C-alpha cells in the first residue's frame, strides 16, 4: 500500500518555515543526475534491468550513512494512481516524465519532503533537494552529501574527460541543475523584466515557467536555472546562479519600493481588487487565479493586507492546480467545473486565514 501522506496535504513540511528572502524567492532546488555503470539508461533498459536498478538503489537506503539524512519512504510509481501522481508533480516532488513514462520508476521521499530521489527517470538516479526561500547553496550541499553517500555503495558511470555520464547530452559533466523560483511582479509591472531576462540568458542561465520545460511564466513566477553542466565546477555553477539571483532580488526590491512611493494608490487598488475578486468570485480559471494570487502575494509582502501569510499563499499556489482540486473535491471534473471549485477553495482558504 503506497504511503499517501505525501499527496494528502498541499504543503510540504518545509514550506511552513520562514526562509531567507522568501518574499521574492519561493524555493531553491538542486538536482543531481547519476547513472549506474554497465546498465543501459532507463529509456533502453529492459524490464529486468530497470528492476535491478530499482532494487540496487533502494538497498542503498539501508546503509547508515544514507539513513543519516533522515527517514525515507519509497513509493513505487506503479502503486500510485494517476491523480496522486499528478499531485506529486504539482508539489514538485516528481517530474512529469517519471509520472508518465518510467518503467519500474520510484521516488524516495524524506519525511519533510525536502529530499526526493527519483529512480529510473531519464537517468537511473536523480537526487533532488528542494528548500524554501533562497537557499541554493544549502540545497547543493545537502544533495551533494547524499550523492557521496550513494556513491560509497554503487559504481557510477563516470569518465575522466566527460564527467558523470547522463542520458541527455545537456546534463553531462556535473549532472547538476540548480534552480531558483522567483516571484517578480514589480519587475513585470515596471516592464524591466524583458531586459533582465535577456541579461540572465547571456551568462549561461535559463528562465522557464514554473512547471519546467515549455511551460509559461504564470502569475509572475520565474524559474532561473543553470544551462551549462560541462566545463564549470559545481561551485562555479552555484555561485553564478547565487550571484545573479541576488542581483535580481535587489532589482525587484528597488522596483517594489518605487511602486510603493510613486504609485501607492494604484498598487493598493490593484492588490485590493484582486483580493476582492479572490474572496468573492464564484468562477476563477487557472490563469486568473495565478495572476490574482500574484497580486495578493505582493500585497502581503508590501504590508498592504493583514491576516494572510506567505505560507497561505504558497499553499494556494499548489492547491489551485488541477490535480489538487480533484484530490480535494474528489471528482473527475471538467475544466469549467474546476473553475467553480477553484473559486470556492480560494474563498474558503482566504476567509479561514482572515478569521484565525
Amino acid at each position, binding site marked *: 500500500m503506497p504511503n499517501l501522506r505525501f499527496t494528502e496535504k498541499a504543503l510540504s513540511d518545509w514550506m511552513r518555515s520562514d526562509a531567507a528572502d522568501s518574499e521574492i524567492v519561493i524555493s531553491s532546488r538542486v538536482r543531481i543526475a547519476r*547513472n549506474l*555503470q*554497465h*546498465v*543501459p*539508461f532507463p*529509456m*533502453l533498459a529492459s524490464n529486468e534491468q530497470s528492476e535491478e536498478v530499482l532494487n540496487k538503489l533502494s538497498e542503498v537506503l539501508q546503509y547508515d550513512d544514507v539513513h543519516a539524512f533522515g527517514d525515507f519512504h519509497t513509493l513505487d510509481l506503479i502503486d500510485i494512481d494517476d491523480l496522486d501522481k*499528478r499531485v506529486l508533480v504539482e508539489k514538485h516532488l516528481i517530474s512529469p516524465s517519471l509520472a508518465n513514462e518510467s518503467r519500474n520508476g520510484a521516488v524516495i521521499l524524506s519525511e519533510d519532503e525536502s529530499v526526493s530521489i527519483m529512480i529510473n527517470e*531519464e537517468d537511473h538516479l536523480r537526487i533532488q533537494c528542494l528548500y524554501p526561500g533562497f537557499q541554493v547553496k544549502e540545497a547543493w550541499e545537502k544533495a*551533494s552529501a547524499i*550523492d*557521496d553517500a550513494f*556513491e*560509497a555503495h554503487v*559504481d*557510477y*558511470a*563516470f*569518465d*575522466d*574527460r*566527460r*564527467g*558523470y*555520464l*547522463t*542520458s*541527455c*547530452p*545537456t546534463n*553531462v*559533466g*556535473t549532472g*547538476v541543475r540548480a534552480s531558483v523560483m522567483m516571484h517578480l511582479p514589480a519587475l513585470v509591472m515596471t516592464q524591466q523584466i524583458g531586459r533582465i531576462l535577456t541579461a540572465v540568458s547571456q551568462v*549561461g542561465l535559463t528562465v522557464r515557467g514554473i*512547471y519546467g*520545460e*515549455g*511551460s*509559461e511564466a504564470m502569475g509572475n513566477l520565474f524559474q532561473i536555472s543553470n544551462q*551549462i*553542466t*560541462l*566545463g*564549470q*565546477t*559545481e561551485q562555479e555553477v552555484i555561485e553564478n546562479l547565487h550571484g545573479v539571483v541576488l542581483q535580481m532580488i535587489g532589482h525587484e526590491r528597488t522596483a517594489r519600493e518605487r511602486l510603493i512611493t510613486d504609485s501607492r494608490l494604484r498598487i493598493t487598488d490593484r492588490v485590493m481588487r484582486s483580493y476582492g475578486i479572490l474572496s468573492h468570485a464564484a468562477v476563477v480559471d*487557472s*490563469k486568473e487565479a495565478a495572476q490574482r494570487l500574484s497580486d495578493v502575494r505582493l500585497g502581503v509582502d508590501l504590508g498592504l493586507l493583514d491576516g494572510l501569510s506567505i505560507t497561505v499563499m504558497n499553499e494556494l499556489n499548489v492547491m489551485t492546480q*488541477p*490535480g489538487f482540486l480533484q484530490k480535494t473535491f474528489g471528482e473527475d471534473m471538467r*475544466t469549467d467545473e474546476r473553475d467553480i471549485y477553484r473559486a470556492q477553495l480560494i474563498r474558503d482558504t482566504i476567509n479561514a486565514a482572515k478569521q484565525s
Partner: protein
Amino acid sequence: MLCQECNKRPATLHFTKIVNGEKTEFHICESCAREKGEMIPGTAGGFSIHNLLSGLLDFDPAGKSGSAGTPPAKALQCEECGMTYSQFSKIGRFGCSSCYKYFDSRLDPLFKRVHGSTSHVGKVPARAGGRIKVKRQIADLKRELQESITQEEFEEAAQIRDQIRELEKGIAQE
C-alpha cells in the same frame, strides 16, 4: 479578431495549448509572434530540448563530404547497447554510458555548442577519484612547466619536471 497582445493588428496565428487537460487559446498577430517568439507554446518555448538537440546533431559536414580520417557519423554504433549515431541524432539521448565512447569522435562539436566546453572539471567520485585527481594535478604541473620554460626559470622547471615524473610513476604502478 484582434491580436491579444497588441490589440491593434488582426490575429493571424491561433494556438491551442492543452496541459493536463487544461485548454488555453492564443490569438496573436505575426509581428507580436516574432517579437515574443519564445513565449508561444508549440514553437520555440514549447519545443522539447531533444527536438532542438537533434537539429544540432544532424549537422554532419564530415559525413556528407566523405572526408577521410573520422568515420562517417551514420556508420557509428554503440557496441554495448546497439544504438546507432543516427538514432542518437534523432532522439537526442544516449542509450548507455558506452555511447559516449563509441560516438566520441562526434561529440566535441556538440558539447562545445551546448556547454561551450568539452571537458569536465567538477566533482569526481571519491572511490574512483584518486587516479583522476593525480591526472589533473599532472596536467596543471605541465602547464606550469611550460610557463617556467617560457620565463627561462630553468631551475624551477627542473623541479616541476621531477614532480611530474614522480606522479606519473605512481599512476603507472597502480
